[in-house]
């Protein structure tokens, strides 16, 4: 850890090793070299006289990057791409005359950004799946545990603990669908040259338009992208960044909603995020267990969501074929949104795999509210015992207000049923009234909705998952 200068908390504290490596100079500049190799190979396949040895040397040095040498060149040239062209040329001398032939900086910088964002989406996707796996187990286990459902943050009716988890899960499934669409259709910037007209490549191929088109296509295929953007300025349209980052921000928002629920449930005492044996909740209040992981999710998600509009603003601010005012901004915004969302999902996976549920607290809280929620059922019970519906309603209303008042004045429990059983005008015994308000009768289809959701949405999702790697090996079928 660096202690004498500022360093990013995302790197020092929050993001995973895998996501940090993805956005590292080693990965980025390794991609630049791969892009230079793909360009040289493509040009060679289309007849440009690039010797075998040049390509061989490039291939042999894709990851042997001398960053000190590159830094020295950059100091001289004040240009990072040219610095790396020269550093690459030093270790692949036979290729030096051909590296970057016909290309402009955006060929490596923009295409590498697209590759990095696509890999970033893949990594986030695998983390979302981890969370969904934990939540699947959780939803199954608690599918029919009645709990208070809230609207307006007021107890409304009963739902189940598992059903609530499916709400979190569904948000993540929608995020996955969004990732998949964006991942599948994300285009490549391709081989377009300065201002995007491909003039330098038309020169290279002596006016052969078809070869220029093919080079764009060939390099795109080599990098396993579905298609190059049909047209670009010097850079790819920054709209693509906004599209991708909107997906990333969507994940953060889903996680933030989840974290809010967890924080409140922990406040109610119904549920708690995992707590390590030696974890300290508060430096002063030693008894405390704070939902600090969920709070951190909220904290990071707010950061991510505050950056989302930035991407569209960068797109909006571009003039003509390119401006450079996107550069420093993208350098921060793109990696940081991925790193922070990665950190969020690591936290969410941790919380969801170790959520503690306290059924006793949940049941006590249900018992305190349920008699009030059971008005309809209690009326029906009274009428079945020979009562009058209008009279029963009035009786319940009167005793409900009194029982609620008593609770607010310090009563231990909700005694509405006892009050009713003692009221001769209601005419139903306590035991029968208690039978009427079995919590499981108030959860509607919540347990079955959990079953349906897991069967119809989650199982196919995971089935598709194992088929995915298989599909990648399949050619056409």
């Amino acid at each position, binding site marked *: 850890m660096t202690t004498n200068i500022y360093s990013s908390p995302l790197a020092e504290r929050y993001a995973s090793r895998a996501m940090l490596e993805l956005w590292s100079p080693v990965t980025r500049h390794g991609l630049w070299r791969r892009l230079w190799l793909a360009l040289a*190979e493509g040009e060679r*396949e289309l007849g440009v006289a690039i010797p075998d040895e040049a390509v061989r040397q490039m*291939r042999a040095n*894709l990851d042997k990057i001398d960053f000190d040498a590159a830094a020295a060149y950059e100091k001289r040239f004040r240009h990072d791409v040219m610095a790396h062209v020269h550093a690459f040329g030093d270790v692949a001398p036979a290729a030096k005359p051909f590296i970057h032939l016909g290309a402009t900086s955006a060929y490596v910088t923009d295409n590498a950004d697209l590759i990095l964002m696509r890999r970033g989406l893949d990594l986030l996707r695998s983390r979302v799946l981890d969370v969904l796996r934990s939540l699947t187990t959780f939803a199954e286990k608690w599918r029919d545990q009645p709990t208070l459902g809230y609207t307006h943050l007021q107890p409304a009716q009963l739902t189940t603990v598992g059903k609530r988890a499916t709400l979190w899960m569904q948000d993540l499934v929608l995020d996955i669908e969004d990732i998949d669409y964006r991942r599948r259709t994300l285009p490549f910037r391709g081989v377009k040259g300065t201002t995007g007209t491909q003039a330098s490549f038309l020169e290279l191929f002596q006016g052969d338009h*078809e070869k220029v088109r093919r080079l764009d296509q060939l390099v795109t*295929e080599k*990098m396993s992208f579905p298609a190059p953007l049909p047209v670009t300025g010097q850079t790819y349209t920054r709209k693509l960044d906004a599209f991708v980052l909107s997906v990333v921000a969507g994940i953060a928002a889903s996680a933030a909603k989840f974290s809010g629920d967890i924080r409140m449930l922990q406040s109610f005492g119904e549920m708690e995020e995992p707590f390590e044996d030696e974890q300290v909740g508060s430096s002063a209040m030693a008894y405390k267990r704070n939902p600090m992981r969920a709070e951190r999710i909220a904290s990071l998600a707010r950061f991510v969501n505050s950056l989302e509009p930035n991407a569209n603003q960068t797109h909006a601010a571009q003039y003509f074929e390119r401006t450079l005012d996107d550069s420093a901004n993208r350098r921060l915004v793109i990696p940081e949104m991925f790193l922070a969302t990665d950190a969020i999902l690591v936290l969410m996976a941790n919380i969801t795999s170790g959520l503690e549920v306290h059924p006793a607290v949940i049941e006590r809280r249900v018992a305190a509210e349920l008699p009030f929620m059971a008005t309809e059922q209690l009326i029906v019970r009274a009428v079945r015992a020979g009562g009058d519906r209008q009279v029963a309603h009035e009786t319940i209303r009167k005793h409900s207000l009194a029982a609620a008042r008593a609770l607010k004045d310090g009563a231990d429990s909700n005694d509405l049923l006892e009050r009713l059983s003692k009221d001769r005008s209601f005419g139903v015994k306590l035991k029968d009234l208690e039978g009427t308000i079995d919590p499981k009768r108030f959860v509607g289809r919540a347990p079955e909705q959990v079953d349906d959701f897991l069967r119809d949405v989650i199982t196919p999702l995971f089935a598709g998952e194992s088929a995915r790697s*298989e*599909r990648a*090996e399949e050619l056409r079928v």
Partner: protein
Amino acid sequence: MLMQVSALPLTPFRRGKVRDVYEVDADRLLIVATDRVSAFDVVMGETIPNKGAVLTQITAWWLRRLEGKVDHHMLSANTSEIIREVPRLRDHEQELQGRAMLSRRTTVFPIECVVRGYLSGSAWKEYRERGTLAGEALPKGLRESDRLAPPIFSPATKADEGHDENITIDRMRSLIGEPATTELQKLSRDVYEAGRAIAATRGIIIADTKFEFGRARSTGGEGVEKVILVDEVLTPDSSRFWPADSYEPGHGQPSFDKQPLRDYLEAEKRAGRWDGNYPPPRLPKEVIDATSERYLDIYRRLTGHSLDPNGSH
């Protein structure tokens, strides 16, 4: 002559990973199969000798066998004949040898018609985890690579980018209408069944395959649109070919054509020498030769002849 990319004096119509299509005129296309090969979604740097010619000539062989059973797009797969028809190509005779097919132009249905005769690949995964295929329930207790009788028709949309997406037959109906859905399904099953039966006598199992169909104006002059089989037909690239002599259900089967390539790449991955991204490893000559030999062997087994690059028989 090996071909990595084709460059012909014709207007390009569509470029694929493996095949390039050119416009000849308003009624005809030229389809050229290159020798490029991809595996694990990555295009290899090397080409496989004879692969393009084998793919084209296998399609041509099948279409001749299927004459009368289904209308198809092939006008000629004989390079000399094609050059007589399209004299602009005469300087390219050698590079086109065997790999070019002159075809009728059609309006292609946006559906991949997949027929599965054996339980494999993504179909096996779906069955194992959900007991279904293309969303329909299958009998219990099937094993990987088990034969499906009757074969199952599972359409997919043709995605320009990335992988095709499996769809239900209902969805297919809503896309292209009931009559075309029924006809494409019937033709797909018929052609697959005919192909499966012929291949079986040659020691090849065609586990599953993909067809494409188009509508062409009938040459009968009445302006009747009829459905014709287009694209490649029952080739190792459009189908899963297994050697029948080693067939054994209960696990995955080796691929007739690409197994040497896949084995090599898997070993490179396991050894940590390849991360699955560009650039793929250089393919040793033995792997290239073994893969090429596989393609030639399939051609020989199916047709009973060695490949004649002229495609004249």
